[in-house]
Structures are given as C-alpha cells and as structure tokens.
C-alpha cells in the first residue's frame, strides 16, 4: 500500500465569477515559466473553480485533498472550501442530484516569504469514494468566512487527490 497523488485539474476545470487563469510569469517575474495559474482575487464573495475527476482504479482509502497555492503576502490567512459528490456504478446513480455529498474547509496562513510553495491537506471521507467513481467538485476561496483575512489575490498552482492504493 502506497500513498499516491493525481492531478484533478484538467479539461473540465472551469473558473467562475472573478476567478481567472493567468500566465505564471506575470507574478513570477524572475522565473521563465509561462504555464497558467488560477487567480482568486480579493473580493467579499465565495469564489469557485469547478471541475471533475475519476477516482483511480486502485483507490483504497486515506482520501485527502491537496491544495498547492501561494500569494504575494507574507501574513494573514486564506479560507479554502471544497464541495463534492462522487457518482458511481453503471446505470445506477444520477449525476443530477441536489446538494453536495460533503463540504470540507480549512484555512492556511500565507507563506513566510513571497510566492513560496504552500501545501494544505484537507481530509475527505474515505467511504465516499470508490475506484472508478466520477467526482464533481467545486473549490472555493470563501471570502464570506472570517477565516479569510488576506486582502490580496491568492494563486492556485495545483489541486491534487491523495489516496492509498492496494
């Protein structure tokens, strides 16, 4: 049994409202990398990046969401929420269900030095997932929550699903 991670951003990733993709070089002015980051600007709302992924075939348990992020600030906190529903089977479960299966959240403090890599792990309920499930999700920067004290944009670099395999 080993711990695995898969990237859960991809072709179905969709920024909503004020969230937008931006070349990394705009903020990382020294580095030569031109890939896209997702920017969650300073607002007073709960701003979403939506998407979906497939649970890997050898999934067993110990499900965690890994948020890899950074910001230009060096103090204060960001509040991340993650809502999802896992849908499984073959001709047994509808994609069109009201509400979420689970909603989890946690806050993380800004890096000690500008634009350092930050990693936040949020535990998910193991039993909600089975190998091969389709998972629809929304990742939110919840700026309606008192836990989000930052007044600048937050940069999402990666979003990962971590689990133990067989």
């Amino acid at each position, binding site marked *: 049994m080993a711990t695995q991670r898969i990237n859960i951003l991809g072709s179905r990733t969709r920024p909503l409202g004020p969230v937008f993709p931006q070349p990394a070089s705009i903020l990382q002015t020294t580095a030569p990398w031109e890939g896209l980051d997702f920017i969650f600007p300073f607002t007073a709302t709960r701003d979403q990046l939506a998407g979906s992924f497939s649970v890997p075939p050898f999934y067993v348990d110990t499900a965690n969401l890994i948020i890899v992020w950074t910001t230009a*600030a*060096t103090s*204060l906190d960001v509040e991340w929420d993650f809502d999802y529903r896992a849908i499984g089977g073959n001709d047994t479960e509808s994609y069109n269900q009201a509400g979420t299966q689970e909603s989890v959240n946690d806050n993380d403090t800004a890096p000690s030095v500008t634009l350092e890599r930050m990693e936040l792990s949020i535990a998910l309920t193991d039993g909600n997932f089975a190998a091969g499930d389709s998972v629809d999700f929304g990742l939110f920067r919840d700026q309606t929550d008192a836990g989000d004290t930052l*007044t600048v944009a937050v940069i999402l670099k990666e979003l990962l699903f971590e689990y133990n395999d067989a």
Partner: protein
Amino acid sequence: MAVLTDEQKAKIGGDAVKDMGVSNVTRADLYAAVQAIENDWEGHRAALGAAIDAATVVNFTNSQKKLIGKHWMRTKFSLGG
C-alpha cells in the same frame, strides 16, 4: 450614514491595496477604514453643499456639485494632498 456592503468595501479597499503596493493589510482593517471614510463623508456632506452654495452667486445643482467635488478630489489626492 450609509452602511456599505462587504462587496463595496472589498472593491474600494482592494483597489486601494493595489495602489499602496502592500499586501499584509487585514480585511477587518480595510473594511473599517473604508466605512470610516464613508461615515465621515456623510457627516459633512450637507455642510459641504451649503458651503458651495454660500460661495457662489448662482447655485450649482447637486449633480454639478458632485462632479466638481469628484475632480477636486482626483487632483488633490493625485498630487499627494
């Protein structure tokens, strides 16, 4: 006095933070500063209108007074006043 929504305070405050070039201002402080400006402004608004009326021969309309005030403030604060 007008109570600004969080969305309004974030819009005004976020623009100010960008102009200030700082990143470690707290949300609570930013909201409080914006609301304090709003409260103080509303407290003096009527007196300011009366002062303009007293200084002018032909009274300006409220809309005209707002425009004069807007351009005064842009020039004043862009010069570091």
